[in-house]
């Protein structure tokens, strides 16, 4: 038999190696963000020479310049508008449909549901090409409404799936009670089903909000005018300009990443649930 000390040292060594491994990867995850933040506080002159991680001087005015002169204030507002509108749209449209698929009966119900689900399974790379043509025909190209509707469609199938799964498991008694009290179907959906679905609604909200905030290619093909562009496209344009103002670009990147990271820290549970479930069904 080996001594207790042998086992203890062995366990401590193994734990140490594991922590070292985990810590190395964790640092590699955070460091690029730290470097982004650090670069955003340098000037166009010092950024190419001063390679220190903590800058010698903090030029917070870069954020002001990026917001005002870089136009990121405008793009930030656009991104907020698109994200909020799409999320509200999806919540209403998807929860109505999911409630019907779960609770109401009508001919062709299963077929319709399977069509929605098939849309998640069939890969359609390059679907932005016919979408561009369609947007032109409907005169929705280069409009906020066109982008919002297209993005509602993107999140629709997954959201319907998540909500229907939840409604299926929900006890029927409350709805029955409401019906006996004379509540209409729409009233039950609004007063009973939606409040009960809060946990899954949170998942749907953060999953879609993240998707819209980070979306690039549809915004690229739908918008021509700068005034309508969301952050992601604006960042790429800013980078593509003749002389890239790196400190301002880094400030713009920080402004884009910050809301996501803050939301993530506070809503970690829902985000992880949403993105993993969204990925698995999609």
């Amino acid at each position, binding site marked *: 038999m080996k001594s207790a000390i042998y086992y203890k040292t062995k366990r401590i060594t193994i734990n140490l190696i594991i922590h070292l491994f985990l810590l190395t990867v*964790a640092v590699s995850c955070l460091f690029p963000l730290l470097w982004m933040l650090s670069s955003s506080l340098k000037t166009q002159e010092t950024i190419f020479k001063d390679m220190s991680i903590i800058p010698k001087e903090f030029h917070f005015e870069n954020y002001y310049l990026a917001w005002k002169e870089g136009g990121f204030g405008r793009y930030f507002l656009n991104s907020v508008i698109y994200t909020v509108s799409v999320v509200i749209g999806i919540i209403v449209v998807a929860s109505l449909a999911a409630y019907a698929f779960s609770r109401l009966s009508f001919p062709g119900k299963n077929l319709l549901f399977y069509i929605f689900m098939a849309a998640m399974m069939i*890969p359609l790379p390059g679907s*932005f090409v016919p979408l561009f043509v369609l947007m032109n025909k409907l005169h929705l190209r280069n409009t906020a409404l066109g982008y919002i509707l297209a993005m509602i469609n993107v999140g629709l199938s997954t959201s319907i799936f998540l909500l229907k799964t939840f409604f299926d498991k929900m006890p029927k008694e409350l709805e029955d009670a409401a019906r006996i009290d004379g509540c209409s179907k729409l009233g039950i959906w609004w007063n009973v089903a939606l409040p009960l679905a809060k946990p899954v609604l949170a998942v749907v909200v953060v999953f879609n909000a993240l998707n819209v905030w980070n979306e*690039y290619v549809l915004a690229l093909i739908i918008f021509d005018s700068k005034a309508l562009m969301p952050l992601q496209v604006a960042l790429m344009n800013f980078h593509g300009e003749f002389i890239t103002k790196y400190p301002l670009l880094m400030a713009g990147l920080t402004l884009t990443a910050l809301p996501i990271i803050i939301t993530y820290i506070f809503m970690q549970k829902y985000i992880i649930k949403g993105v993993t479930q969204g990925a698995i069904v999609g």
Partner: protein
Amino acid sequence: MKIKSILENYMFVLPALVIFAIFYIIPFVWVFQIGLFDWDGISPTRIFVGLNNFIEIFKEDKIWWQSMWQAGYITLIALTFQNALAFLLALACDREIRLKNFYRLIFFIPPILSEVVVGLVWQWILDGNYGLLNYWLRNLGLAHLARSWLSDPKTALTTVAIIHSWKGFGWGFLIFLAGLQTIPRELYEAARVDGADAWYIFRKITIPLMVPVGVLVAILTILGTMQAFVLIIAMTGGGPAYHTQVPVLRILASMRGSSRFGYACAQGITFGFILMIVSFIQYRFSKKFRQI
């Protein structure tokens, strides 16, 4: 049932149906239609060319197939390096260990950031002249290793693949960890009581039970990585000289660069079919594994 009640029920799905029909079904049908034409996407006339677009893809478009191989190469690195890392990290966290929640929080930060943000930040770090990586290499006396990572044809594709893995391993980590946590602890206890060592337990209990999870992660990795392209736009734009081109970038280039909408749709259909075949094979494989 009364007709009025049925109509009422239809009203619930109507908004979803209308949006879905306009923005999903119509484009879906149009892809197949436009793919048969030579068309710039704007002019009122378009020329019917039958399957000529597809013939061109298969016979002449070398860059298209090069882009397919390159996406395959990135996928291969994601399948091996990225998923091995994800699995090892999940194993390391599947125990009573301090800071477990902290690690889980951090590992999922790269996946939630946009590809544009990740791409542009890494592009700045990897810059040939002013990048931090080359600065560090020079300071460590490894100046001969410093290079323009993203504009050197020898390193560009692998660099892109590694950054893609950096952004994506958090997914695999979370799914693997969730899988590991479903393995009943009693199984491990029982094996230990019977005198099995850690390596034996790992091979005979952990690995067999994790096969279905592994297949799931592999499917998600392949479908996700083959279609990834925004990260590449942000890092290299497909260059140097087509060395980091991938299929979806080619589709975008056919559409926006050369205004060949018919050809872009034909490329999309070709790629879509290839992805369908890949996921079908994977699906069959995963069924086989589940039977064992």
